[in-house]
């Protein structure tokens, strides 16, 4: 078995051991089930697009944080140093973790939209904004271990990363002509929310442009975190 596969298997064992998967997946299923029941019962009828977007924004950084914390734990305990003198490629491990987190978030987002049917868009229109949101997961996975020295800083940093993604939900409620509305564009998730809303308004060009903008913005942030993480590994 390759060292990389061994590390990922070990991650999954850790995650299972700490009840993370059980609690996390259980909660995610519960949230979708509760939303589906409420929708079927006719609650919050005019608000389901907004609710769906808030739900999409709410867990993407969180999943990234869980995988990022595996790296922080290794940095904290010295396992990371041991890995650097082992046959394991530490950058490969980080990439594999990001891939697992992104795949998890992307699949869940698609499943949630398919079950709730609140966003009636064809798959090819969903791909761009959901790819962008999945990048938020990758960003959180790398940013937390890149800039945090230990668990406490990791938690504090995560709160900031989390808020910087979720703040995009405000864009759903503030008047578009308010003087402060453009300020929300300093957060990349806002671009993706605008992309989704443009697609829903049948503005395909706007949807593509906003979504690509959000993806590019997250890609730049991800690159900065990747460089910082690389430097930290070399220290």
């Amino acid at each position, binding site marked *: 078995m390759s060292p990389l596969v061994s590390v990922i298997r070990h991650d999954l064992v850790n995650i299972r051991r700490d*009840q993370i998967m059980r609690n996390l997946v*259980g*909660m995610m299923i519960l949230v979708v089930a509760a939303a589906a029941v409420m929708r079927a019962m006719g609650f919050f009828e005019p608000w389901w697009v907004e609710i769906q977007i808030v739900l999409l924004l709410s867990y993407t950084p969180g999943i990234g944080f869980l995988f990022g914390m595996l790296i922080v734990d290794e940095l904290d*305990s010295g396992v990371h140093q041991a890995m650097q003198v082992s046959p394991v490629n530490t950058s490969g491990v980080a990439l594999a973790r990001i891939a697992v987190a992104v795949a998890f978030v992307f699949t869940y987002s698609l499943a949630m939209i398919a079950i709730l049917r609140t966003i009636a868009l064809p798959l090819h229109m969903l791909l761009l904004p959901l790819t962008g949101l999945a990048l938020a997961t990758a960003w959180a996975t790398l940013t937390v271990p890149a800039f945090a020295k230990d668990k*406490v800083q990791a*938690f*504090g940093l995560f709160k900031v990363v989390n808020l910087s993604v979720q*703040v995009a939900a405000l864009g759903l409620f503030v008047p578009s002509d308010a003087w402060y509305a453009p300020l929300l564009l300093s957060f990349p998730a806002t671009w993706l929310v605008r992309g989704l809303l443009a697609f829903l308004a049948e503005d395909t060009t706007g949807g593509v442009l906003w979504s690509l903008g959000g993806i590019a913005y997250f890609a730049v942030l991800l690159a900065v975190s990747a460089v910082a993480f690389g430097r930290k590994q070399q220290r």
Partner: protein
Amino acid sequence: MNGMHGLLRLAAWDIRLQARENVYAFTVLTTAVFAAVLTLLPDDTPRSVVAALLFLDPAIVGLSFVGAMVLMERGQNTLSALAVAPIDPRAYIAAKILTLTGLTFAGGIALVFAAYGTSVPLGTLARFVLAIGSTGSLAVLTGLVVVARSRSLNHFIARLFPLTLVVNLPLLAHFDLVRGVWSWILFGLNPGHAMLRALLWAADPDRVSAGEVAYAFAFVGLLIVVMGRVASNLHGDELAHPRA
């Protein structure tokens, strides 16, 4: 070590640690975002929104930080050092409550000023001090209980997930989506309901009856005593037999 002297030294150490770990800087950043939201809310926004925003994070800021701090101290063998120091385990817990509730106060009151402006009435400020002090202390104690048997930060977060979900459910009653007797049947024993009632009383006293205020503070007070006892036992055990 003298009880009060020990507590003050532990609290001073905690403050240094929190500053070194940028806990204050992170709290300033997140508080600034919440303050911006509160400032930009239209003037006719119901006060229940202010209470709900406080409940979402600023009023319970210690819940997560205390877990991360205890896990870090455990990892750095600080607890082993404390185990051989003449310190009452209750002082260790009290120092965390004191410093992190202080942080909750600072953030929460800053948000009260953001919501009401600098001319916030003294009565309103006093109500918020009482409500935020209670919710903040309960949050820190809950974090201490949850982290006591957590093996890692991810384990701690995994245990917080369901708890957070349950505690947030009374927001349905807070925004009148669940009303009347159903709100009490469904959420009467949920600490989130009592905390939200306390914060709503602070924000908009006309919307909360005297009975509800008594319920909110009596329930939160009872939970503080119970959680304090449990946290003291759990961490007392750990300080007597520290884990690596």
